[in-house]
């Protein structure tokens, strides 16, 4: 099962490599990962997506919790949550394709953020499967370059991941 694990990490050099190292060392896979500072400059927020059965996910969360740099951890997929990923896609846009791409972008509530004589750069935000669906709709032949931010997530409602 796909899981979104989100953690508060000491904003220290080496902290990120400990998290990433844990996954390679123990043979777990990371599908996406993003990390940035939070409102508290001593903390970073790291969100990663991974695949595994309950046993594997339990081991992953236990080992992450053991890392001294990991301050707090939540498996967002355990409760209601909001998941977002940002994607920038450069697509071939010539002739009739230009209108077609524009229409498709509108359907996915994306934006064309850069225009060239033969290309559009499209920005789409949403859950990962929406981004996948856009790529499918546009078609492999048109896609020139894809940049995805990796998943960010936050729990719904009053629940807050903080110190």
């Amino acid at each position, binding site marked *: 099962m796909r899981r979104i694990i989100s953690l508060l990490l*000491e904003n220290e*050099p*080496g902290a990120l*490599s*400990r998290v990433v*190292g844990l996954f390679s*060392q123990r043979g777990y896979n990371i599908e996406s990962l993003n990390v940035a500072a939070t409102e508290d400059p001593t903390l970073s927020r790291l969100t990663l997506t991974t695949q595994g059965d309950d*046993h594997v996910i*339990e*081991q992953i969360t*236990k*080992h992450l*919790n*053991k890392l*001294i*740099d*990991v*301050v*707090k951890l939540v498996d967002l997929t355990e409760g209601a949550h909001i998941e977002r990923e940002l994607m920038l896609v450069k697509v071939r846009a010539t002739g009739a394709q230009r209108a077609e791409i524009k229409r498709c972008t509108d359907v996915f509530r994306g934006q064309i953020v850069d225009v060239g004589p033969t290309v559009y750069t499209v920005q789409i935000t949403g859950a990962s499967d929406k981004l996948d669906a856009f790529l499918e709709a546009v078609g492999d032949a048109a896609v020139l370059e894809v940049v995805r931010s990796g998943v960010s997530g936050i729990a719904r409602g009053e629940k807050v991941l903080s*110190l």
Partner: protein
Amino acid sequence: MELLSGGDMVAQALEDEGVEFIFGYPGGAVLHIYDALFKRSKIPHILTRHEQAATHAADAYSRATGKTGVVLVTSGPGATNAITGIATAYMDSIPMVVLSGQVATHLIGEDAFQETDMIGVSRPIVKHSFLVKRQSDIPETIKKAFYIAASGRPGPVVVDLPKDITNPFDKFEYNYPKKVKLRSYAPATRGHAGQIKKAVSLLLAAQRPVIYSGGGVVQGNGSDLLTKLARELNFPVTSTLMGLGAYPADKQFLGMLGMHGFYEANMAMHEADVVLAIGARFDDRVTNTPKKFCPGAKIIHIDIDPAAISKTITADVPIVGPVDSVLSDVLELLSEARKEGGDTDKAALAQWWKTIDGWREHAGLWTKPRYDQSSALIKPQWAIETLYKVTKGDAYITSDVGQHQMFAAQYYRFNKPRRWINSGGLGTMGFGFPAAMGVKLAFPDADVACVTGEGSIQMNIQELSTCTQYKIPVKIINLNNGYLGMVKQWQDMQYEGRYSHSTYEDSLPDFVKLVEAYGHVGIRVDKKEDLEDAMKEAFALKDRLVFMDIHVDPHEHVYPMLIAPNGSMRDMWLSKTERT
């Protein structure tokens, strides 16, 4: 408030931490620290002949005393030489603080002379690590390092110290914190009451229980409580290689379990209906095929490390907490239950003990000798039994890795915790001799013997010189079979006796002459009838290092041996020709 340089701070912090020994080796990046030690430290520093030996000595000092071992090495090759020792300590959860020099901060990343990314290289084999970037951070970082190393599930911590921050010119306020708190680190202090209650009712209802005790009982000082619990319940106890001695070798003790475990211990595990695992981690050398492990048992697992629980074998009753506190809670609940009329099933237990005694009778290593008594050659098992006799079972025994290690674990009947010191998790050849040094320094009046093989001893034999310098009179019991014996055993059993590079073709040194060159005593023993007297003589030489080069039967194998792959714990070779 005193103003100190970074180097002085390191020296002073070790002093304030109550460190008894520093095991180390100097070099460019740590010269400021060494100068500070020279000027202001009263802590004895042991200059080993290789950084690996320094880490093993510090590690074994810790295993024997329960205190944290301290290592000081330079950057680059000094740091990388320490890696094997750090990994050894990590695998066996031994508290150790390794101070490594680093190139000056402005040179980091420039491939400077003797630069190695020590934090990166050591990352997967440390509990935690610090790169100290400012002088003023030194005291608190060292305090944190000691706290992290020794608390929770212990482990090695690396503190990487760039040369410039230890320079003698810049001085800062020095204040060694009494306590540190880390917001992201809070090891469990008590087991969950509800789980402990469940465990107690399982224990009381058990028909065929086994207590499976591990290194955590030694590390967590749970030996007395384990002994009390086992005796109150009249349950059989087996121990991992790491846990030997935590429960004494009495009649409730089934011996070691696992790969080369006792027949009765492995059988009891397989047939058990309740297994109480304490500070053990269901290592693959214990479980054999996990799917076939303890098919009929409910498993109670006590461990300080939540990640150790249900890692390979799912626990029915997981209890996260320190061994000593959880065991006291168990004992308390047990006596409450008894007051209310609850008790163990005495009839079932009597039946269980009868079954166990039958196994003991069939193939127990301590029931009657299972190796050839009439052989003219010295059997390695017999050498260990002689060692046990001569030292009255009361020595500290360190060991290397191989057949000699397994024979020592099987035949030296450990009655106290912290007496059996070996590299169980990593299986590091070269561990035993420096380990013996660390133990002997901590307990100068005790008998300390390193049981080794001619292969392993040569991996850190340079320490003979260290023992000369600091007068460390350990005894080296070299079970010389002329082979990398454990490798040979596997080649005999699985590769039709093709000895691919497991012998030395007459290149072994004359160990007696070799140790004499360092000023020590060497005794060679070839004849069975000479062994006991020679050993008595060796141990009578209290203040000399004695190297006993004992030539043993080269073709002996270690049994029992679990049959893998796909075997369960009851599938064992019991001798070269006999299997279960």
